[in-house]
């Protein structure tokens, strides 16, 4: 048998195998669109944010804090391969950061409006009482790298729900801590900076929330790879998702 014939046979076989897998429409187009805008935006926000942080890589707690004050966290400069732009330039980094901050805010607003109106958050993300009871089992499944199959794979598991809701909360937290670093916005809403414990506390929280988002992204990417990267990424591009079969 020639190589091409072998390939043709194996291709037919795999096509047949795939044909048996149920394909569902997993992600609605607003979710897919806002997901990719969000991915690009967060990447740029983290890179330009680290460049901005390099101008004064010390974090404080309270309203004020500068060289003479005791830092809450004294960091080192972030390397140029992590920052946007790669060279240290506070003015340019701020241009990137504030342009994409607007994109992030608009994108999050679109997502939240659509998701609440179409009950995506209430139906797909908000955990049910049954979900919450399944947390210990879900943790064990995740540790053992066991992924849901069949009917269970058609809905988000409880850790996924909590992670996505957590990300949403963190993004709102990023916007609020970011805004409260603006002296103009502080004059408009002085209560916000008070709630956050002061302007320097808000700056520290901005960094800690961003770190939590980076941690989310790392776990998210690992999970995508473990759950089958092609199927997962395709489902976020075209919406079509092949449900893993019980016997796989």
């Amino acid at each position, binding site marked *: 048998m020639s190589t091409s014939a072998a390939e043709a046979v194996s291709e037919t076989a795999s096509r047949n195998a795939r044909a048996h897998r149920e394909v569902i429409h997993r992600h609605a187009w607003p979710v897919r669109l806002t997901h990719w805008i969000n991915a690009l935006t967060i990447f740029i926000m983290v890179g330009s944010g680290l460049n901005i942080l390099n101008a*004064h890589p010390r974090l404080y707690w309270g309203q004020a804090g*500068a060289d003479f004050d005791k830092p809450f966290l004294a960091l080192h400069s972030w390397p140029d391969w992590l920052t946007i*732009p790669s060279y240290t330039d506070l003015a340019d980094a701020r241009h990137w950061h504030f342009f994409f901050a*607007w994109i992030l805010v608009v994108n999050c607003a679109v997502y939240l409006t659509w998701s609440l109106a179409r009950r995506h958050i209430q139906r797909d993300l908000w955990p049910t009482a049954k979900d919450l009871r399944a947390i210990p089992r879900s943790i064990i499944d995740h540790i053992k790298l066991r992924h849901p199959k069949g009917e269970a794979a058609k809905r988000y598991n409880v850790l996924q729900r909590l992670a996505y809701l957590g990300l949403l909360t963190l993004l709102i937290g990023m916007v609020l801590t970011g805004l409260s670093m*603006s002296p103009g916005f502080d004059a408009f809403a002085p209560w916000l900076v008070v709630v956050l414990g002061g302007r320097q506390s808000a700056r520290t929280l901005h960094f800690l929330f961003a770190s939590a988002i980076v941690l989310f992204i790392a776990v998210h990417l690992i999970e995508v790879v473990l759950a089958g990267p092609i199927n997962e990424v395709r489902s976020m591009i075209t919406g079509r998702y092949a449900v893993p079969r019980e016997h796989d």
Partner: protein
Amino acid sequence: MTIITRRQALIGGIAGSGLLLTGCSRIFQADSLTESASFQRVLAAAQSWTLATQRLLLAGGQMATEYKPSDISPHFKANGTYNPGGEYYNRNVAQGFANWRLRIDGLVTHPLSLSVADLRRLPARSQITRHDCVEGWSAIGGWTGVPLALLLRAAGVRSGTRYVVFYCADNLDGEPSKGGEQSPGQYYESIGLIDAMHPQTLIAYDMNGKPLDVAHGAPLRLRVERQLGYKQAKYIQRIQVVSDFRSISGGHGGYWEDRGYDWYAGI
């Protein structure tokens, strides 16, 4: 199956780290984008969105938060120029700024020339506010001075006025100007009329109850509380009322603005 997915995970992880190690900036060609004038114009749109939004939110003339005396920072970090030096400034320091003049001119009906003693005789305002540097740090200080609005009313602002420009005695010559030729290193700043007329905008002469020291802008500095630190011009000699600042120095309305920083520093 688990073995395969683990291998996939490993491959994915290596591919992902490799992509990251090539550099965040390189993935998006961020450096060449930053250097492109047309991309900078796209990014600059955000500055006008922020300005328009904050002008709308602050249309009520809201005040910056004022703090208690106990909140004052024990060490208020000085930044930029610590001492303008030079024969002229040093002589004025030696004279206790007795001969320092503040000129107010430009689009005004009565140009003024005031001494520090003249200013101290005018109605004053004291406020304890937070100073936010563009670099990220903050310090709280108490300021006493003459509301700029009072001086501008005395000088009689003519119609067509849009900006107030502050000329300083310090020269920060080290840093090249962005976008073209080297602009003079003399520090200057400008604010819009809305901020100039705000009750908390002062020509300050006292800091924490004592005359301003050299590091913090003696004898006169600007306080424009709803904006960042680089707008708070020190060592002020002249206030010019203008309709346009494009012909002044580098043309962007301030020393740091000529070096790429945003003119509107409310964020």
